[in-house]
């Protein structure tokens, strides 16, 4: 036994003087009063559910406006419809990233906002008088992009004339209403599933504590990261910027809200701000609550020599700033202001790195889309 001990001490001595592993700043004590339950309650109670409720209201308004427009095709009703479309579209940006649970069950994001739109197919359906827009192969002929095309492609007169056209006008009105109805129905269905007065997913969400793959924290962070990377960085900016096609040339018709044009920037900005609010725990009405920032602070998560929370907060500001300076409309400035678009894409990319790598690493959240053993 003494021999073994002697050997152990020898080995310990040998290896403790080896200085080959990275030295990192000393972390302070991590004990604190932060509880994951509180974060989940704050997220669901003051951010996710209220935002879904708002979106549900705005989507219902859009549907009513479409319905009013159908019964009276007038310039004033078109104006109302356009305004309601924009409000609902902006509202959508506050919930689009929660593609898990109820939203994932009905693939809400795919049902609501696939662009670019397949105009040829849409026009074909309108010609046939079909309003059959369900199923996986009809995702690119509906949602906000479809309404954008139907109500925003051209001047007031030309748009109105497409709806009063003798041969296809009524088909077009019917199609418009069907798209708006689907948006509203989906919004109401997901909102009701979250609601404590409906299917009460919220209680399931609040009680799935921990950091495993199936935990609410894991679900939210994974959904958030996928969203920022694919649908925000790529979808809203990178793909139109030509980052994903061989030739690297800009693709203006791939921007969000292409026909309206003016709103692309605002929609992207709204999405980033919504994600920032979730991070900070800011509720739908703007009051500051418990967010991921508080969790990171309680863990004393570090980033290089500073705090991870500071790094993320300033990266959010950087993203907002670089999107704010993008000239409007985005589609006309992709080539002339390429460096600005590149900058915005780069800031979002850096945000992706922080949220996808640093946050899960610091919090022990299992970021894997596939469960597997580790060692």
């Amino acid at each position, binding site marked *: 036994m003494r021999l073994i001990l002697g050997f152990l001490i020898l080995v310990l001595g040998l290896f403790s003087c080896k200085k*080959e592993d*990275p*030295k990192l700043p000393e972390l302070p004590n991590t004990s604190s009063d932060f509880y994951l339950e509180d974060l989940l309650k704050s997220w669901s109670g003051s951010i996710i559910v209220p935002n879904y409720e708002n979106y549900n209201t705005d989507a219902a308004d859009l549907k009513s406006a479409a319905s009013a427009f159908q019964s009276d095709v007038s310039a004033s009703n078109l104006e109302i419809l356009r305004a309601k479309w924009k409000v609902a579209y902006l509202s959508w940006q506050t919930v689009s990233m929660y593609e898990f649970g109820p939203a994932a069950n009905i693939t809400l994001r795919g049902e609501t906002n696939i662009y670019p739109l397949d105009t040829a197919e849409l026009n074909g359906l309108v010609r046939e008088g079909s309003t059959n827009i369900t199923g996986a192969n009809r995702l690119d002929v509906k949602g906000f992009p479809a309404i954008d095309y139907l109500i925003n492609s051209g001047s007031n007169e030309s748009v109105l004339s497409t709806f009063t056209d003798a041969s296809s006008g009524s088909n077009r009105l019917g199609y418009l209403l069907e798209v708006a109805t689907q948006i509203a129905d989906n919004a109401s269905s997901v909102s009701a599933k979250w609601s404590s007065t409906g299917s009460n997913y919220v209680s399931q969400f609040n009680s799935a504590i921990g950091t495993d793959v199936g935990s609410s924290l894991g679900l939210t962070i994974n959904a958030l990261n996928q969203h920022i990377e694919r649908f925000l960085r790529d979808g809203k900016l990178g793909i139109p910027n030509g980052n994903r096609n061989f030739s690297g040339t800009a693709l203006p018709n791939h921007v969000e809200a292409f026909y309206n044009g003016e709103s692309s920037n605002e929609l992207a900005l709204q999405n980033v701000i919504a994600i920032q609010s979730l991070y900070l725990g800011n509720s739908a009405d703007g009051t500051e609550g418990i967010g991921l920032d508080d969790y990171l602070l309680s863990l004393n998560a570090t980033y290089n020599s500073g705090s991870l929370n500071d790094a993320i907060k300033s990266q959010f500001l950087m993203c907002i700033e670089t999107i704010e300076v993008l000239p409007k409309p985005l589609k006309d400035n992709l080539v002339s202001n390429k460096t600005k678009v590149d900058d915005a894409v780069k800031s979002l990319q850096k945000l992706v790195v922080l949220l996808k790598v640093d946050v899960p690493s610091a919090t022990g959240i299992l970021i894997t889309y596939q469960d597997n053993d580790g*060692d």
Partner: protein
Amino acid sequence: MTETSKLLFSRIKNNLITKEVDIAPLVIFRLIFSLLMLSSLVRFWAKGWIYDLYILPTFHFKYFGFEWIEAPGDPGIYVLFSLVMLSTVFMFFGFFYRIAAVVFFLGFTYIELIDKTTYLNHYYFVSLIAFLMVFLPANRYFSIDCKLNPKLQNRTIQAWSINLLKLQLGIVYFFAGIAKLNYEWLVNAMPLKMWLPAHASKPVIGFLFKYTGVSYLFSWFGALYDLAIPFLLLSKKFRTLAYLLVIIFHVLTYWLFPIGMFPFIMISCTLIFFSEEFHKNLLRRLEVMVQWRNKDSSAFSTSRIGSFGILSIVLLVCFQVVFPFRHLVYEGPLFWHEQGYRFGWRVMLMEKAGTAFFYASEPKTNKHFEIRNSDYLTANQEKVMATQPDMILEFAHHIADDLKTKGWKNPEIRSDVYVTLNGSGTRPFIDSKTNLVSIQDSWKEKQWILPFEN
């Protein structure tokens, strides 16, 4: 050789190698090991991992030197798994034992070599044990082979068979312990200080994980446990206590970390350290339970080890002692560059995560774009690849090969990779100016890995 060393050598040989001992521990080990392997494979299949890991991916990361290993595809991989599972059943019953052990070793190892993404120390451990099982006379008692050929039957064997397994287990523990003797683990309690607080919501003792002291306790206990447990298990006096520690340690790790079957494999395999009497008792009960009748056999044919056998064991042990330290020839922190990381019993040692962006370009045609990693890799592969330079390089070559089939002549691939190690914060990992296609993987220092700096 001096007189004393001669004496020492002959004592070792007589006591640890050629001494005749009861076969019971080896028979029990055979039964336990085959059952465990069978259940591991069933679990793997039931979880759908055969599909997720060997069919779904369109690309597999190859081990250096084993590039010729191919995924057998669907249904080939299921056939292979079935064959390996069948071999565990044959091993269990000791029926065509030697052939079954060879099939298990080759089949299991082949599966593990298909994709580096799935590398786990415990799979390496299984391959090593499986290799040893090929040469151990584990079917010489309580087996169908003995029923069919009573001449095979043998109540005693030479001690090396059992000691070799103990040695192998001891190496795993001891080297896992040595791997923990680093500054981060001992002085900063990393990565446990990052991992444990995430479990603060676990029942009963969860609240303890919020305290840094607990992370230190776990780190130090873990290191001491790994270093000492082989010796404690060997000593008669401490064996019961040691085994209690084995159970506590592994159950705790199972509870806290997603490490699958490994804890149960270690808990069961370490039974080999128990006394001859313990195993004889166990075997007797089993014989009664299944009403086993031994055929009378007058033959006495102990499988004796020769000098070639002893030499092989010495070489195998030397390899295992030296190979984990190959990282010493590379500069910089091992956990960062991971050159020489695998096959070194570095288990749950660091919190490392990353993400990688790849860009393809062709200067002549002015083509350039960002690769969508998910076009080539599963989410799991992407995640594992992002922190390991050899996989990043391999993936870059794969992208280039694919682009060549799409009409590109000289694709260049560059990468922006960000990695965080033990909460350091993400930092650039790979030189983004290097065209990875111009680099071939080798044992040479990977100059294109950026240094880990604060």
